[in-house]
């Protein structure tokens, strides 16, 4: 495919940085994050230079309007100044880290980057909806956040799109002998609102697309004008099932901007919380898989484990879902270490018993194998992250990226679990492996010592990038702060934003309807994280 012909084979990070700097100007290098200014005309070659490398992945792409509209000035569109386009490249080959290229776009158009790095496509759509600038060439864009009914006039982060959002390309024209099976937004009990357009010939899945705009709460819009201290509570709640990861990434971004780091003990505390989060999410995913395969006893067994893990969270950090642990500069609470040491092995043992039994149940395993297959090529092309990517054999993990966020993980490195087949079963195995790994890490971090400590985050007009590995994959946060430490632009990119785009590919791979719940469970994503 067009995306990954290995042009330059595995250039080291420094080579890549220098080549990029050759096209533009090296702006800043801080804590494993290199920022390069690229002029608009050099954006295309720069993207080529970066996208060509095997070990380099387009982690995110976002824009920043140059005006400072606060939520009070609702619906105020940006003034006519330029929009800054930022591409975040994750370098995973030799020394993991991130490279940001920032480019000022003067007019309505910029080079169609998704032709070079297809992973940029969804972001191109978002940027068009939020800032009104679109890739040149006029290829259609999908609707990602804006609701189709026109009654609602949502404020945007920048300029409104040239043509009204209603004209943002709505997905499907169904032709021939297929029809669209509408599913949602109100679906089964106890699941999030989400719309599937399931195109089927009556038997097999011909195509599938999804809308999440039912949950678009404008988080990035309403974060502006808040101090980090206020903002982080909202940031946690963009994707509650990965509250720690989102909060950590967001806090880390603020710390990077302010040039401070959390105390080592606090960082370890964060890591403990992060691994606990991974544990209970994987348990929940297991339960969901059992439900999707109609194995109710297995589901109950997994749910017992899940509930026990949640109670461990509550006993350790005082919250079943670990809300409110992360603070900018550190953590607000210390884990109850002995409670954790006492409770965790039992709870994990519960999970282990359930999963061992599941792996010995053919009726379960058969449904998982060769279902919802994704290839490593697809995963890298679409920039997938987390267990989904690791199940295809890509060893991508934000915990490997050092310093700012990764302090504890440099002391105690994480063994990355991968699988090869890329199907649901592979994802399941990756989750099981990671659960075991998480338990090990928790115990080691506890040994390292934890505390409720917080360093002051001095207000300072600056920008910073933060990241963390949520149970769904890499979470990225980027903030721009003003002098008194208020957010002027915050970018939050949970793992769900990435992995949903692989979901329809997985469903299309010659599956029948009944596999879709299984695939959804194995992805274990949230609509909340996608829609924000």
């Amino acid at each position: 495919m067009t995306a990954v012909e290995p042009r330059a084979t595995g250039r080291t990070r420094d080579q890549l940085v220098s080549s990029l700097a050759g096209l533009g100007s090296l702006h800043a290098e801080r804590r494993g994050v290199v920022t390069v200014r690229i002029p608009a005309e050099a954006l295309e070659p720069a993207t080529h230079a970066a996208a060509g490398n095997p070990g380099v992945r387009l982690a995110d792409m976002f824009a920043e309007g140059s005006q400072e509209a606060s939520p009070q000035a609702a619906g105020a569109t940006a003034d006519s100044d330029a929009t800054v386009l930022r591409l975040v490249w994750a370098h995973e080959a030799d020394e993991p880290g991130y490279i940001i290229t920032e480019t000022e776009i003067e007019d309505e158009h910029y080079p169609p980057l998704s032709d070079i790095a297809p992973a940029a496509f969804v972001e191109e759509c978002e940027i068009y909806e939020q800032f009104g600038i679109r890739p040149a060439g006029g290829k259609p864009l999908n609707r990602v956040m804006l609701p189709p009914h026109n009654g609602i006039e949502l404020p945007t982060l920048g300029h409104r799109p040239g043509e009204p959002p209603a004209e943002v390309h709505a997905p499907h024209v169904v032709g021939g002998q297929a029809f669209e099976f509408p599913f949602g937004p109100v679906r089964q009990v106890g699941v999030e609102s989400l719309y599937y357009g399931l195109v089927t010939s009556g038997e097999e899945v011909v195509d599938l697309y999804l809308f999440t705009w039912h949950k678009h709460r404008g988080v990035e819009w309403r974060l502006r004008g808040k101090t980090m201290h206020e903002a982080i509570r909202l940031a946690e709640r963009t994707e509650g099932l990965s509250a720690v990861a989102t909060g950590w990434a967001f806090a880390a971004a603020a710390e990077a901007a302010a040039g401070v780091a959390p105390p080592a003990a606090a960082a370890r505390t964060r890591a403990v919380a992060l691994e606990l989060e991974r544990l209970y999410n994987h348990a929940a995913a297991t339960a969901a898989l059992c439900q999707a395969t109609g194995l109710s006893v297995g589901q109950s067994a997994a749910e017992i484990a899940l509930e026990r893990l949640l109670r461990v969270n509550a006993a350790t950090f005082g919250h079943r879902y670990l809300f409110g642990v992360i603070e900018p500069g550190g953590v607000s609470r210390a884990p109850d270490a002995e409670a954790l040491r006492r409770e965790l092995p039992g709870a994990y043992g519960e999970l282990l018993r359930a999963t061992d039994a599941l792996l010995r149940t053919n009726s379960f395993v058969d449904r998982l194998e060769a279902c919802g297959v994704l290839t490593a090529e697809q995963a890298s092309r679409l920039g997938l992250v987390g267990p989904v990517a690791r199940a295809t054999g890509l060893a991508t993990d934000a915990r490997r990226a050092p310093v700012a966020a990764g302090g504890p993980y440099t002391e105690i490195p994480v063994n990355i679990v991968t699988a090869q087949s890329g199907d649901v079963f592979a994802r399941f195995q990756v989750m099981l492996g990671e659960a075991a790994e998480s338990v090990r890490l928790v115990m080691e971090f506890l040994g390292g010592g934890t505390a409720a400590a917080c360093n002051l985050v001095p207000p300072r007009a600056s920008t910073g990038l933060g990241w963390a590995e949520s149970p769904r994959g890499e979470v990225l946060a980027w903030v721009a702060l003003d002098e008194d430490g208020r957010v002027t632009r915050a970018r939050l990119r949970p793992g769900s934003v990435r992995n949903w785009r692989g979901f329809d590919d997985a469903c299309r791979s010659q599956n029948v309807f009944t596999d879709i719940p299984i695939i959804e469970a194995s992805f274990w994503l949230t609509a909340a994280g996608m829609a924000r």
Partner: protein
Amino acid sequence: MPLWFIRGLRRGVVTTRYPARPDASATALPTPPAFRPGKLTRELADRMISVCPGPALSRADGNLIFDAGACTACGRCALAAPDAVTPTGEFELATTDRAALVKMIPILGEER
């Protein structure tokens, strides 16, 4: 399948007896704060209002207005004023009357 049946039986019963009996796990849940009027000075009240991430706390003519419905039990007020605030430990807050969740806490030195 029969294997799973046996397995399920072997695991035994874990179900809570709530609401017939109280449940032990409830003690670990985050709960909204209770205030000590004796310690609740005005500047403490203002500090709590400022750290509260939601609209749960506000102040009106000498009273701290606490909306338990809007409270996320994040515990920041407790951090801000440790001696004026303790958790209620009360999770049975469901009500048919939204207004019943909004309470007035007298502030020290401002009773009238």
